């Protein structure tokens, strides 16, 4: 399956990537996507994630065509 992975803010700078497409034949979760993209670097506990623009957690399952995002703690207003 084909999915889109995005990184925001300081995490984008840390990872060195803004957006990428990955292909996989495995069943995937957010945590597995992080590991695949970040070369097995442990997922930092403060990192937040979203699947299709809704908050998710490391165990959230990912499906064909999904958009996955990783980002640091948020602060608006």
């Amino acid at each position, binding site marked *: 399956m084909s999915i889109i992975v*995005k990184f*925001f*803010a*300081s995490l984008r700078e840390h990872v060195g990537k803004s957006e990428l497409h990955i292909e996989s034949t495995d069943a995937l979760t957010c945590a597995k996507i992080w590991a695949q993209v970040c070369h097995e670097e442990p997922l930092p506990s403060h990192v937040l994630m*979203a699947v299709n*623009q*809704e908050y998710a957690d490391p165990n959230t399952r990912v499906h064909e065509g999904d958009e996955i*995002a990783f*980002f*640091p*703690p*948020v*602060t*608006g*207003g």
Partner: protein
Amino acid sequence: MKVELTSHIFHPWTRIHAFEEDELRALKGKYGAVSTFVGTMRNEGDTVDTLFLEHYPGMTEKTLYSFSETAAQRWNILDTLIIHRVGEIQAGETIVLVAAWAAHRAPAFEACRFLIETLKSQAPFWKRETLKDGVRWVH
């Protein structure tokens, strides 16, 4: 129920006035209370030159809209308005406007406070400060 992100300077009082004239005309005489909050970029002395507000296009709007729906369900709210700056911001400029219209003051206040608190802690925005000696993400 309106959510707007803008990369341009906006004038909060003009925008509330226009919203009441354009969108709330049919509710005139129905709402007895409006609570608003306006957040402005402070001037922290010499240290911060500009602020850059990054967001997640699509998700940020959806998140703010879902907060508005939660507020409307939880309190007796007639309408809400959220306007938030994105991109580069200078000291003294408005960052955010939140407003809640209701028949009575308690729901107006509580919904407005709920919206700004959830916006601050849960909406996908990130702040990058440009200082005299470099760039820093605000956490």
